[in-house]
């Protein structure tokens, strides 16, 4: 029983991390119809900026976190205005090629500037074990889980409750009608990608504070994020959260009771099962779009 509780706790914690890592990807897809293959690289860049600000420049963790959100948001805004805007409304393939190219560019630029060494984002909470009955966690992990929950809620409120969020949803339901009522769609697209990039970057920084930030980490992050998004349903906000938690728990239980050597395979097994039985994911919005 102790084993089960610990595995469940590990799974839930990891699941929250997966959810935040995948959120930016699913938003950009759901709202913009762009499959962002550079998502993992934006995560990596956010992590390394977080490292540069906390460990190199010696800034406070929260100041750095705010700076990462601003820098990544700005970068996302520019990526959309300068690159993605050029291939808008040309189907999905140009977007795939563009973002794959962007990911290669980001990895190699980072390798050139920072090098291959894994780096650590400094964070204010301790890594000492905390015993909650039979379950061990650390303060730093609980802190990151809390931050994930706050950020997910903030993103949700931004989309559902603000004027910007309403114009985003309007634009993606019917961009012609949205333009007619005076929504500046160029601006809205750019802000959406900025939101996706900021979420990726902030996830990279938060997770870089308990794991490591490294130039070549993006590929693995993207893979896991795609698993989460496909299981949860491409473009679904709730799907990213539930998909993340499912992946975290399934991986923990599989690793705990069967074999840790094949943990990465289990996520893809989930994807196959999902594609066979519910091809649009758990929280599919396919019907609305049709």
């Amino acid at each position, binding site marked *: 029983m102790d084993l089960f509780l610990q595995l469940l706790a590990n799974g839930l914690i990891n699941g929250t991390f997966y959810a935040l890592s995948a959120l930016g990807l699913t938003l950009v897809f759901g709202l913009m119809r762009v499959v962002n293959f550079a998502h993992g690289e934006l995560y990596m860049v956010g992590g390394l900026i977080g490292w540069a600000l906390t460990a190199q420049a010696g800034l406070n963790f929260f100041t750095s976190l705010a700076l990462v959100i601003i820098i990544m948001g700005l970068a996302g805004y520019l990526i959309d205005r300068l690159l993605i805007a050029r291939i808008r409304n040309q189907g999905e393939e140009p977007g795939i090629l563009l973002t794959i190219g962007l990911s290669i560019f980001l990895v190699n630029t980072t390798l050139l500037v920072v090098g291959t060494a*894994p780096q650590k984002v400094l964070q204010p909470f301790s890594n000492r074990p905390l015993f909650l009955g039979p379950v*061990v966690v650390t303060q730093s992990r609980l802190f990151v889980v809390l931050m994930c929950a706050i950020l997910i809620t903030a993103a949700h409120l931004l989309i559902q409750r603000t004027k910007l969020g309403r114009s985003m949803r309007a634009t993606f339901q019917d961009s012609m009608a949205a333009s007619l009522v005076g929504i500046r769609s160029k601006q809205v697209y750019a802000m959406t990608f900025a939101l996706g990039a900021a979420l990726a970057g902030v996830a990279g920084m938060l997770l870089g504070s308990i794991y*490591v930030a490294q130039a070549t980490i993006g590929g*693995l992050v993207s893979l896991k994020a795609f698993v989460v998004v496909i299981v949860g349903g491409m473009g679904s906000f709730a799907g990213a959260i539930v998909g993340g938690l499912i992946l975290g728990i399934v991986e923990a239980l599989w690793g705990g009771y069967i074999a*840790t*050597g094949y943990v990465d395979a289990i996520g893809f097994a989930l994807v196959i099962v999902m594609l066979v039985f519910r091809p649009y994911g758990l929280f599919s919005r396919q019907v609305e779009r049709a």
Partner: protein
Amino acid sequence: MKSIISTGFVLATLLSGGAWAQETIKIGVIQPLSGSVAYNGSADVAGTKLAIEERNANGGVLGKKVEAIIEDGGCKPADSVNAAEKLIQRDKVVALSGAFCSSATIAVMPVAETNKIPLVTGVSSKSDMTEKGNKWFFRATETDGLLAQSFAKILAEQLKLKKIAYIGVNDDFGRGGVEEFEKRMTALGATTVMKEYFDHGTTDFYTLLTKLRSSGADGVFVAAETQDGSIFVKQKAEFGLNQKVFGVGSWATADFMRLAGPAAEGIYAAVPYAYTMQTPKNQDFVTKYESANKEKPGKYGAAGYNALNIIMDAIQRAGSTDPEKIRDALTKTDYEGPNGKFKFDAKGQAHGFNIVLVQLTNGVPKVVATTSIGE
């Protein structure tokens, strides 16, 4: 007319390019420069470059400068084979050094054999690689089997470990290390309470640690590289576990200790090289490496340095850049590196050099025991 002139120009350029290429001796280097062991691969390349700079400063080999052509194999078999084909076919290298991960090197071995190009590895340690009868392959490092044979006794007797958990990275190196140590330790009376593998680039070890906690092990054997290994020991400390850890892989390095922080304290590592080894050759190597790379050399810096020096010695001895002659000269290797003397046996396995058991104490890999690899 214009086209004839331009064709002539292109030909002249090609010819002069060819003539220029004659002036350097090209050695192909395949290392992982991307992926989760990229960091260790870059250390190997740093050692490689140091060896070549040193040699070129002293007049090069056979009166020519040596040039390393470095390709990224990413620790992946397919990419490493592509890199080897490119180096052999396009760059016409006379010898290969690489390809780091055992799985990748095993894939490159037949390519070297078909093309008759000698391949020297300073890193890949899976025992059976030198048992494949490939006469173009040379291993200038220890095998998992030799390491296990040398240190299992010390571990069992000095650390008094009875119940052992084995954890390895999920590839030929990790599986090889775990199998060999388990075999030796079991023969010495230890019992195996857990045996698990994890994938390269794993960031979260809590599941493994949960199993480790309930396994009742009093010692943990870990086969992993710098990044995976440092994350593992750090999370083990977070998890509040205090079993003794002994590892193989890149553990006795300054970076490992920087990444793992206080969690590295007290860990034992069986390594073929530590910068604290006391030989005059090593002191010289450490000084030069540190001034070039702003960090102390680890196992892989030394591996790249040794592999290239062994190849360049062989070319010098062969008196020719003919790969067949270089291969024959390699069999007569008698090289002294920072970690002792290297000679090859009939199967291409090096012997004669030292390996050490270190304990990480206050951020320094303190040598606990030294032994040399016998024939």
